[in-house]
């Protein structure tokens, strides 16, 4: 249990990020920026078809071109990859499952030569009818995206693939008796909602530089959120000892979940092997980032809610059908996590959720900031507003009545305690901030204003045994280096860990550094940097590592001062005996061991280690979904005010208030930045973003020209972050994660505000002006 100190010197303060200078000067080195001697450049040939048999590949002309060092096709690579489900080849073998799937790859002296060689590869396809939505894929007699699903390896006891179907995972949640609950309701609504697949759009596309070294050794530099998971999955893929594989992660230009798991690393390694061990660089083009690398999964939700006339929700039934695309190596866990969170932060006695992760012939899905939650909350939080309208109850009041509170149980049977945070207070805070119940008017008669509200929750979704190590080594000048293998790809966690280390070590912040460039050869284990769990787990590990350093410092100081360690205190980078506080020894004189005047020395280099492993998590029962999946829950709420153009249907978001129960805000400036950035990313999902496919399954908008994300012109006039601090008993200084939550109910709140403004209900994202314009026309009826 972390020590609670008040006042705190660094924790809770807006300490600047240490990486700011490197990034502002262009000296921060990303994988894109690596140039190794003799390095080759790779290009990928992708499938033009969504589903086809590959009947012939001829690489002879490509191999003969000047500068070409290696050409690979799927026939050369008999491997399957995946984090939770090993279903993904490195290059397509025998068949292609989505347009954009890698079919062949070339390493050459220049990118230009590699691209020309790809153009010279002749591939003959036999196109087949693709499965372009989950209804087709679930239909009786539908072709199978993965004929061999029943032979795949997957995490047993956690996932339930259904052999000889397109269902990669079926997650069930059963609580109470949903039929009885619905029968007891006075009002029952049933609504259907849709989310399209959405690209992550990190500004840095995926990039890898790999070298296959003699003795079956591999060195990889990768733009990844997951150095150790990459290493582990490479070891499994190539059947190598972990120690043979070294993964470096330098600065990473955004991830948002898309760089978790494993991506281009195996291809780069295979190309390096085929090119005699020369370094090979693979950098995804912007089109490949959208169309070859994974996106957020699409979702269709069918939600049934029953309630009493007083607003008490009696039952909720939901069917979530995920459009996983061609592979579900990561998507299976999204279907699982979104199911156990799939009733929203409400106390519901009778609940049945079926979450199906379904293969189709589209670009495949993976984790995306909030991991299934933005998608299910789009349905749940719109449905709760529709229920409120049917009941004639204010949407805020209806939510207040049903929110989880101390003493309630979640739909998987977890008991909610005082340490869980307060969704009701988040809701109250945003309702007040937005002026709920007060109507404001636009000066423009063509514009209608409206307000909307939505609540949210999310817990980290991860294996029950997820763990994180931290090391701190003290330098001879008394400063401290923190080594850790979570990745700071912009969220600022290294800065908060630095604050925690300085606080715990009782060192000035300037004397503490977190080492950039994760390296699996030196940095201690961390599972993956995902799910808003790094500050929590890394923070706890750093607290322990700092305590270990202090133990070692005190032991040495006690010898130096001729006392016992329990009579040593530490303060401002100095140790002293509590009986004689005037004689102080700088950490620097203890860091490598203490040397007496006669030359005798004691102690030795101070190296502290700390660790944290998720506590108390259980697998979910495969039939009922009951169990304990959440390390912690972060609750929150959004409120928005929008203006809608009555003629064009265009939405302008005027104001957003976001409240999150952070437990403890470790760094207010960084937390503020997470909220503002997350809200704007949420606006992208709400208003603009979503893949569009033609009838043959070709992705039509894999670029910034056709696939817009918010620009500086699209931001709201005001974004107001509000933080509550209900301490998380096992969190570092009481903190819980807040990185994903700022975006995950933004679309719901805007969808609710849209009805408030112009009286139309839109059930599908994005809320494009075209879609809203149509809905307004339909409401008017034929003129």
């Amino acid at each position, binding site marked *: 249990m972390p020590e609670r100190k008040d006042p705190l010197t660094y924790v809770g303060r807006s300490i600047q*990020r240490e990486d700011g200078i490197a*990034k*502002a000067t262009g000296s921060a080195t990303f994988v894109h920026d690596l140039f190794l001697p003799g390095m080759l450049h790779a290009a990928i040939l992708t499938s033009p078809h969504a589903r086809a048999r590959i009947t012939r590949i001829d690489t002879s002309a490509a191999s003969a071109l000047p500068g070409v060092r290696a050409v690979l096709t799927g026939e050369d690579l008999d491997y399957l990859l995946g984090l939770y489900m090993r279903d993904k080849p490195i290059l397509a073998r025998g068949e292609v499952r989505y347009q954009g799937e890698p079919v062949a790859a070339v390493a050459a002296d220049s990118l230009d030569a590699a691209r020309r060689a790809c153009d010279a590869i002749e591939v003959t396809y036999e196109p087949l009818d693709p499965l372009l939505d989950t209804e087709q894929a679930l239909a009786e007699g539908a072709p199978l995206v993965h004929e061999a699903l029943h032979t795949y390896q997957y995490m047993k006891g956690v996932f339930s693939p259904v052999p000889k179907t397109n269902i990669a995972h079926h997650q069930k949640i059963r609580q109470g008796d949903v039929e009885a609950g619905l029968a007891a309701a006075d009002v029952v609504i049933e609504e259907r909602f849709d989310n399209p697949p959405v690209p992550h759009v990190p500004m*840095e596309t995926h990039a890898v530089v790999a070298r296959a070294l003699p003795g079956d050794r591999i060195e990889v530099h990768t733009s990844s959120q997951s150095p150790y998971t990459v290493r582990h999955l490479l070891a499994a893929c190539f059947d190598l000892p972990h120690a043979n594989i070294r993964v470096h992660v330098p600065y990473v230009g955004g991830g948002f979940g898309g760089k978790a798991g494993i991506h281009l690393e195996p291809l780069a390694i295979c190309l390096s092997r085929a090119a005699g061990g020369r370094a090979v660089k693979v950098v995804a083009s912007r089109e490949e980032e959208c169309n070859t690398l994974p996106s957020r999964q699409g979702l269709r939700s069918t939600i049934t809610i029953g309630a009493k006339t007083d607003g008490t929700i009696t039952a909720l039934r939901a069917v979530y059908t995920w459009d996983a695309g061609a592979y579900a190596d990561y998507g299976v866990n999204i279907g699982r996590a979104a199911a156990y969170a799939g009733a929203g932060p409400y106390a519901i006695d009778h609940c049945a959720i079926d979450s199906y992760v379904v293969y189709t012939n589209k670009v495949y899905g993976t984790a995306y900031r909030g991991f299934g939650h933005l998608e299910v909350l789009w349905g749940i939080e719109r449905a709760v507003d529709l229920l409120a309208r049917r009941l004639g109850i204010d949407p805020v009041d209806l939510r207040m009545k049903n929110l989880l509170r101390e003493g309630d149980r979640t739909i998987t049977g977890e008991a909610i305690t005082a340490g869980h945070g307060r969704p009701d207070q988040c809701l109250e805070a945003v309702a007040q901030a937005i002026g709920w119940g007060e109507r404001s008017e636009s000066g423009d008669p063509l514009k209608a204003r409206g307000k909307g509200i939505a609540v949210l929750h999310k817990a980290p979704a991860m294996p029950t045994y997820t763990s994180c190590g931290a090391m701190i080594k003290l330098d001879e000048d008394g400063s401290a280096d923190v080594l850790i293998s979570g990745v700071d790809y912009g969220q600022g966690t290294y800065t908060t860990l630095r604050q925690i280390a300085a606080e715990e070590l009782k060192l000035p912040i300037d004397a503490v550094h977190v080492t950039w460039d994760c390296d699996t050869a030196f940095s201690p284990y961390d599972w993956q940097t995902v799910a808003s769990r790094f500050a929590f787990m890394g923070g706890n590990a750093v607290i322990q590592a700092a305590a270990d350093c202090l133990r070692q410092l005190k032991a040495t100081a006690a010898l130096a001062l001729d006392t016992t360690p329990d009579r040593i205190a530490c303060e401002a980078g100095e140790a002293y005996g509590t009986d004689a506080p005037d004689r102080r020894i700088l950490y620097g004189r203890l860091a490598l061991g203490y040397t007496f005047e006669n030359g005798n020395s004691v102690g030795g280099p101070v190296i502290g280690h700390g660790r944290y492993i998720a506590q108390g998590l259980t697998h979910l029962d495969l039939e009922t979904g009951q169990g304990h999946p959440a390390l912690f829950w972060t609750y929150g709420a959004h409120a928005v005010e929008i203006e809608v153009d009555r003629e064009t249907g265009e939405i302008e978001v005027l104001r957003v208030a976001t409240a999150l129960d952070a437990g403890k805000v470790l760094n207010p400036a960084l937390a503020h*930045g997470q909220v503002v950035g997350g809200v704007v990313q949420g606006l992208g999902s709400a208003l603009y973003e979503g893949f569009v496919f033609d009838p043959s399954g070709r992705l039509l908008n894999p670029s*910034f020209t056709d696939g817009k994300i918010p620009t*500086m012109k699209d931001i709201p006039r005001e974004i107001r972050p509000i933080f509550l601090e209900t301490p998380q008993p096992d969190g570092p200084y009481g903190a819980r994660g807040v990185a994903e939550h700022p975006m995950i109910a933004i679309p719901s709140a805007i969808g609710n505000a849209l009805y408030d403004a112009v009286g139309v209900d839109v059930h599908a994202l994005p809320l494009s002006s075209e879609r809203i314009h149509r809905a307004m026309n339909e409401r008017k009826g034929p003129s």
Partner: protein
Amino acid sequence: MSDEIHKTHDIHLTVNGQPETGQVPAGMTLLAFLRERLYLTGTKAGCEAGECGACTVLLDGRAVTSCLVLAVEANGATVETIEGEAADGALSALQRAFVEEGAIQCGFCTPGMIMAARGLLARNPDPSREEIIDALSGNLCRCTGYEAIIAAVERAAKEEGGRDA
């Protein structure tokens, strides 16, 4: 056509105050020349289609997306990249404002964002909020939500001697 693209040309230009020369294929972009020939990797490649602004540099004082400029077009020109912004080793007021206002998260868009702002401040030392947004709306950032970037440019304009608003 493809032969034409691979024909090489000699170019001479000034980059961050230093004379540079190169023998470049006609099809090589200024972005590739800066990154792959001069190893000035602070300039980033985000889309190579002129849509994201990560590769923004100043060409004869004007902000351009260097992925849409051929290296041969920069022959005789003066180019400023992010590496020239802190030329004397100290952060410029603009860079300092980006750091201190929290305008940086992952940092991949930052060099292009700073160069676009530098181009703006060079021609308009005292821009309004709307002028900042106009000048920088071609630079995409997926992390920050832009608000802190606008604040950083406003602050730098004040500190660098633009008239206070």
